């Protein structure tokens, strides 16, 4: 009998990241029979996910000398004989210079080509490309603004309130809300100063501020030969200060017509861009029920398991196989979006104390495992693990699937109640409150406030 083993020309893959995503990438390597090599900082060298693995210490705990040190990382990949590198999310995942450096030294970078990444990192060219493909935009300036005077003109034509945003921005920095013409000058100076400091680019553009929308995003997958598919949408509207807390699919607040039209246009735009690999287009769903393009993330998303639970497609395996030159091995018609999936992010934060960070030693970590394949727990922690103070606070994600939203939410609640974490505070109590709240269950909320949670 003929058997088809997973195909891959890679034998050793360098993981240029840490924590949960590093452990996640290693699992995909195991499935593809690839040896993962972890590049780690001094502070992570005793992490449990490195046990029985190959790893190399890049530099000290501070990210600028380890997880953000481009030359050290590529040197380490070469030195450990890796021919391909996965950047995970955050850190250097969307850095075109790093992608180009990898390629220059013969290490395949898992992600789109550097030129595409560069275009997506600059917001106004990305928006123009999306408009050409038929996606709707948020009204605002046609490109970057010349100065505060032009900002005032465009703002008046657009109508207040408006949002000033950094051309090279991200993560909510370099952004200012302006509610009246008198405030434009001061806000312009503040946003420009902040974006110069954060992104070394003081250019700004302007959009109408849409308050209280829903955050919807579309998962895309493209091979190196121009074949593109979508894997449905996700609703990520449970947020605090632009940080996503809960993500689910499908987005029930979306009309079927708007969903179909936007999915098709997103696939077109992705193909037109020459995009390669896994990517996500983010939209704002406005009061009129229309999806308006915000930005495209050129990387794997934290919430990718939501899509994996519905489609049965492993996105990290797909990224690696695509980087190895495989053609997409399924078409749009083959993708079956089943049931409802929902994820919550468990962070080392105290939700009843203003979400203050809570690093430290997890004295006891226990997850009640029922062997139910409709529940998935992605984590890198275990009893005795010390959550370091140097990095972000994500320690675990729990994902549940159900035949409908009710069933998925019930199953997620049950799974969360089965987690025991002693020693540090986590966001689990907040998630349980949200999941049992009427606002959330009845889908009556937006990105401005966490439904069912005061604080």
């Amino acid at each position, binding site marked *: 009998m003929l058997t088809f083993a997973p195909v891959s020309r890679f034998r050793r893959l360098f993981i240029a990241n840490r924590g949960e995503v590093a452990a996640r990438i290693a699992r995909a390597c195991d499935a593809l029979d690839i040896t993962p090599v972890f*590049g780690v900082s*001094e502070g992570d060298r005793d992490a449990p996910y490195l046990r029985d693995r190959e790893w*190399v*210490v*890049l*530099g*000290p*705990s*501070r990210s600028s*000398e*380890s997880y953000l*040190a481009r*030359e*050290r990382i*590529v*040197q*380490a990949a*070469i*030195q450990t004989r890796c021919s391909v590198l996965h950047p995970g999310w955050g850190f250097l995942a969307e850095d075109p210079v790093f992608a180009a*450096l990898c390629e220059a*030294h013969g290490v395949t970078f898992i992600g789109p080509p550097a030129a595409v990444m560069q275009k997506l990192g600059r917001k106004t060219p990305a928006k123009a490309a999306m408009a050409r493909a038929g996606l709707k935009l948020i009204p605002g300036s046609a490109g970057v603004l010349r100065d505060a005077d032009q900002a005032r003109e465009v703002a008046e034509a657009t109508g207040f309130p408006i949002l000033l945003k950094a051309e090279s921005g991200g993560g909510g920095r370099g952004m200012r809300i302006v509610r009246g013409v008198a405030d434009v000058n001061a806000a312009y100076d503040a946003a420009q100063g902040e974006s110069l400091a954060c992104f070394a680019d003081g250019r700004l553009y302007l959009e109408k501020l849409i308050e209280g929308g829903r955050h919807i995003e579309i998962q895309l997958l493209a091979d190196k030969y121009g074949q593109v598919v979508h894997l449905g949408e996700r609703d990520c509207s449970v947020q605090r200060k632009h940080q996503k807390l809960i993500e689910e699919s499908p987005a029930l607040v979306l009309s079927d017509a708007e969903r179909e039209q936007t999915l098709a246009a997103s696939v077109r735009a992705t193909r037109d861009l020459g995009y390669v690999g896994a990517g996500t287009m983010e939209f704002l769903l406005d009061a009129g029920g229309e999806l308006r393009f915000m930005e495209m993330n050129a990387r794997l998303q934290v919430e990718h398991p939501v899509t994996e639970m519905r489609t049965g497609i492993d996105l990290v395996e797909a990224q690696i196989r695509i980087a190895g030159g495989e053609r997409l091995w399924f078409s749009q018609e083959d993708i079956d979006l089943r049931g409802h999936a929902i994820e919550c992010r468990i962070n*080392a*934060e105290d939700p009843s104390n203003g979400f*203050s*960070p809570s*690093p*430290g030693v997890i004295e006891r970590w226990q997850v009640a495992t029922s062997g139910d394949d409709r529940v998935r727990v992605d984590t890198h922690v275990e009893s005795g693990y010390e959550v*370091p*103070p*140097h*990095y*972000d*606070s994500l320690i675990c994600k729990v994902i549940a699937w159900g035949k409908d939203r009710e069933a998925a939410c019930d199953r997620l609640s049950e799974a969360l109640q089965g987690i025991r974490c002693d020693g540090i505070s986590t966001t689990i109590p907040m998630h349980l409150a949200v999941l049992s709240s009427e606002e959330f269950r009845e889908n009556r909320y937006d990105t401005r406030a966490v439904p069912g949670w005061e604080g």
Partner: protein
Amino acid sequence: MSESSHVLRARPRDGETTELLAPSVGVFTPAVAEGQLVSAGQVVGTIDVLGVLHDLTVPGGVAGRVAQRAGGGRSRVPVQYGDALLAISTASMRDAAATTSAVGAGTQGALAFVAPMSGRFYNRPSPTEPPFIAAGDTVQQGQTVGLLEVMKTFNRLVYQGDTLPKQATVESIVPNEGDDVVRGDVILALRSLSEK
């Protein structure tokens, strides 16, 4: 030819040996042989990080004979950050090395304000602004004395605690700007107002 230079970090292995540690992942090429005498300021090899050669120099206070080299006799040795590149036998030069370990005993038993959690310490609200507090200042309960960056968020360090006096004079600010501190590390060395 080298393009930059790194002073190696030293770590005592035992009373008689000091290890010099790799400052980065990379390929180490030693420039000294086993048995050779080395001293502070001397270039003892290079590390190649993606084609850029960095000179590696012996730190102050270290002198002795090369007892061991990473990779044995090999000329290009792949290393990771923190690996011991050279072991220096200081037995014959104990007097010279003794001066390096005398710092840091001064704050023992005195008043101290310690870090409530681990993180990165900053003495200023932003690089262009004046520091929250300086040596010689008087500090009062409730006063912000610095920032602690924990998991990418900035937290105000507030001088407070049952065991601390209402007011005290700042003897010194122990960590440097941007230093990583762990919970319990001394942030401010203090003296009570009555003392001189």
